[in-house]
């Protein structure tokens, strides 16, 4: 989707109302409540901040476009989120008209620090309604507020709602229907809206005149935190949870993924049977159809991870997880929230990179995205097991040790790279860790399902297009040039094969021959593809997968030295051979700069690592 297609033309457009509020004020819940599934997600031009626009149906054919702005504590443009928010509200955002009105959502249980945002917003002079959310919590914890007094004090309409329960939204809807009047901006505070102590003092005086009685502390949150943030239990519970998430993505998604694969391959062979045997059929089935399959197959993993992240974020546990993991990750320059993407990357980098969106700091998010592909993903396992079975002699426990060592190697590479990045190109003025611990809440079914729909759309539409393109290109490379009779080339004679042979001198120092070279080219599509490519090149004719692997093992033992096998394993540990990951990173970072840099870096590391592994193993085995 291009930026302009979601930009709203100034003429004949529906009213645009911006939703703004501090983090944890329930802004997105209210947005979802008002718009439901009528949402569009895009990125703001040039930045990684997501733009959510949705249409609210207000009855009698009245509708209004709502814009969910990132959660901010102030309008001072310091972070990327604050800059986007302030640009939008000032009408400085390209492709987006200045909003006609503002809904300012505040947490009513926490008016003291939430009200400080009112002053800079009212200073904008846009028609504004202050929406006090979490009315249910306020009431149940014994707090109260006089709405009329607050409204008189602020000079704008005020509503008390519970977005989770859908209570009190009628006032909000009638405000949205307009026509709204701008706030009477008279109070002295507005002379100095960027001065924090000033805003806070003003907020304190407003809450006092509005008869605000702060609610008692959330008792359940305190009780839960006594365990969940316990010195021993806290980290133990988090570790168990991370293992559960990893296992669910690794194994829990398997049945669904097998089902998707089966559906794609059986529908593919059915289609194949219906079509005449031409090259076009090959392009359609082996290029496009398989390409689509390679995208859709990730969906179960992405949905499972999104569901976990949704539950963790909506319940309030995410802040605690980040807190517990922060110290360990801070030592390599990452922050606590990176723990979820990094653990997910042990199953698959694609959902992990999607999951990195929850890290607010742009540099920390980029660093997390850049290192996640080093973690051993499930696509590396078929390659590792093949090579380990062929080249690590002896007992099963020794082979298991080698595999465990590879997990460590991946993690070490990830953390070393994070450190390198954060001390060089992603050096930040050390984005300080300031994290609010919101009270625990029950996640709602509604909000969780909306998240899943949202992630599915983003993934299929945005990443899908690129993956499809790359799949077709790789198919062409393995098929062209055509034989004189017009049929596809043997893989050794194809463009991919030619490249494999051309790069043979370059990969010779690693101990690889041209066959491995071809495998490296085709495995750019996905790592495990090298297994089937090598099967084809070594001319193994069998339909039984185990038999293929068995004979492939002996072929490799004959064709590769132990040094070359070690080099190949190390190469796979470090190289970015996964077009899906590249495509997702391209989408998540908003350009080719980061994926190209990452690909080059990982290739350089893979090459030098493989060379060292080859030399070292050869020296050890000859000694």
């Amino acid at each position, binding site marked *: 989707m291009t930026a302009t297609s979601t930009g709203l033309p100034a003429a004949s457009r529906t009213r645009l109302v911006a939703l703004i509020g501090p983090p944890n004020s329930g802004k997105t819940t209210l947005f979802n409540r008002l718009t439901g599934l009528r949402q569009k997600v895009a990125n703001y031009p040039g930045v990684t901040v997501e733009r959510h626009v949705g249409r609210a149906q207000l009855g009698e054919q009245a509708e209004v476009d709502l814009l969910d702005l990132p959660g901010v504590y102030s309008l001072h443009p310091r972070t990327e989120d604050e800059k986007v928010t302030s640009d939008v509200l000032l009408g400085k955002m390209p492709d987006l008209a200045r909003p006609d009105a503002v809904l300012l959502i505040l947490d009513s249980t926490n008016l003291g620090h939430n009200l400080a945002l009112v002053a800079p917003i009212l200073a904008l002079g846009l028609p504004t309604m202050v929406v006090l959310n979490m009315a249910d919590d306020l009431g149940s914890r014994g707090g109260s507020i006089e709405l009329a007094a607050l409204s008189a004090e602020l000079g704008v309409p005020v509503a008390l709602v519970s977005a989770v329960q859908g209570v009190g939204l009628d006032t909000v809807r009638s405000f949205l229907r307009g026509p709204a009047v701008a706030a009477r901006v008279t109070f002295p505070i507005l002379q100095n809206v960027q001065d924090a102590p000033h805003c806070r003092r003003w907020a304190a005086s407003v809450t006092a005149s509005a008869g605000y009685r702060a609610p008692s502390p959330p008792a359940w949150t305190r009780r839960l935190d006594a365990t969940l943030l316990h010195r021993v239990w806290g980290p133990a519970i988090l570790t168990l949870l991370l293992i559960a998430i990893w296992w669910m993505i690794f194994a829990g998604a398997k049945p669904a993924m097998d089902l998707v694969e089966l559906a794609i391959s059986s529908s593919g062979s059915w289609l194949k049977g219906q079509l005449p045997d031409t090259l076009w059929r090959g392009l359609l089935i082996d290029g496009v159809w398989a390409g689509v399959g390679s995208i859709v197959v990730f969906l179960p993993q992405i949905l499972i991870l999104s569901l976990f992240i949704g539950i963790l974020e909506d319940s309030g546990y995410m802040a605690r997880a980040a807190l517990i993991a922060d110290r360990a990750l801070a030592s390599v320059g990452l922050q606590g929230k990176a723990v979820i993407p990094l653990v997910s990357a042990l199953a698959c980098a694609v959902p992990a990179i999607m999951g990195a969106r929850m890290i607010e700091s742009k540099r920390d998010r980029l660093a997390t995205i850049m290192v996640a592909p080093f973690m051993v993903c499930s696509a590396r396992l078929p390659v590792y097991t093949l090579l380990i079975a062929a080249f690590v002699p002896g007992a099963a426990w020794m082979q298991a040790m080698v595999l465990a060592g590879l997990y460590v190697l991946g993690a070490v590479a990830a953390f070393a790279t994070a450190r390198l990045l954060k001390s060089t190109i992603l050096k930040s003025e050390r984005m300080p*860790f300031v994290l609010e611990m919101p009270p625990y809440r029950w996640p709602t079914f509604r909000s969780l399902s909306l998240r899943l729909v949202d992630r599915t759309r983003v993934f299929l539409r945005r990443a899908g297009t690129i993956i499809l393109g790359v799949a077709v290109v790789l198919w062409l490379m393995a098929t062209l040039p055509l034989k004189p009779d017009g049929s596809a080339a043997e893989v050794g004679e194809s463009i991919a094969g030619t490249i494999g042979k051309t790069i043979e001198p370059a990969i010779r120092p690693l101990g690889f021959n041209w066959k491995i070279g071809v495998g490296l080219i085709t495995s750019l599509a996905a790592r495990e593809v090298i297994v089937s490519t090598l099967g084809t090149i070594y001319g193994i004719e069998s339909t039984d997968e185990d038999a293929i692997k068995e004979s492939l093992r002996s072929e490799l033992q004959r064709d590769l030295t132990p040094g070359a096998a070690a080099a190949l394993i190390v190469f796979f540990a470090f190289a970015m051979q996964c077009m899906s990951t590249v495509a997702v990173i391209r989408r998540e970072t908003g350009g080719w700069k980061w994926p190209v840099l990452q690909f080059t870096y990982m290739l350089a590391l893979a090459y030098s690592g493989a060379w060292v592994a080859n030399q070292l193993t050869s020296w050890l085995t000859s000694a």
Partner: protein
Amino acid sequence: MQLSGNNARTVADLACHETGVLLSLDLEPALADRLMLLGFLPGEPVEAAQCAPGGDPRVYRVDGTEIALRRETALRLLLK
């Protein structure tokens, strides 16, 4: 508790569940502003809430909210 030498007490020195009154924020303006908006204002009480795992970062309670800060930040929040 006593002041050691010239070093003023900071919120990092607060014992678990101890409350102190903030004197000043010795931080760059951007971060100081952010913390003040969250309630870390001179003259306001700050309570060390959780004796969090490992002690860093640690959760502080100000004005009804709980905010986690790294030790390096807490060391710059001076107490009266």
